[in-house]
């Protein structure tokens, strides 16, 4: 009888584990199918093991070479100076 209990236990365990696997695999397959049908030219995010390229495979851009347009004073301001610029720009306007 104990042999039967052993084998039946294993079979019940197998039943549960295969159900779980089938559940995970079906979710994953359906998700990938959806992504591929909605975005035919879908590419996964770029992964760079050295940590220098971003999710598009592009290296970091120097912030100081980027400019924001300030709507307050109508001038282009260096992106990494923008917060400092706003402090003065908005203040001086309120005084005028």
């Amino acid at each position, binding site marked *: 009888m104990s042999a039967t209990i052993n084998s039946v*236990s294993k079979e*019940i*365990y197998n039943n549960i584990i295969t159900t779980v*696997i089938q559940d*995970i695999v*079906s979710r994953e397959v359906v998700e990938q199918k959806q992504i591929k049908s909605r975005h035919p030219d879908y590419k996964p995010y770029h992964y760079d093991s050295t940590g220098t390229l971003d999710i598009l495979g592009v290296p970091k851009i120097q912030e100081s070479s980027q400019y924001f347009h300030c709507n307050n004073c109508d001038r282009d301001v260096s992106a990494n100076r923008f917060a400092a610029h706003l402090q003065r720009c908005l203040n001086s306007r309120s005084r005028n």
Partner: protein
Amino acid sequence: MTTDANNNLVNLKAQIQQYLVESGNYEKISNDLNKRLLAEGWMESVKKLTLDEINVNDSTKFPQILKNVEPEAINMVSDTTKNEVIEQIKFFLNEVFNTEQ
């Protein structure tokens, strides 16, 4: 004769499973197994395995992917989890047989 014995075993198995479901023990065992698998990272591993399989074969056909993933996923369950859950099932089965006799 052998088919008869086989039928009996299948019947017995079905009865045991039904008993486990009705007594609520099946749910307990299943939840416990799920919790363990999640905690040991098995769930994520299986997801990753499935994704790799989809990419390698460039196919989203469920039967094909499942056929490749299932044996490996079963192997990836840690021995402690597997043995403890089987012990748990045995414990419940022993109760069933003790009450019946």
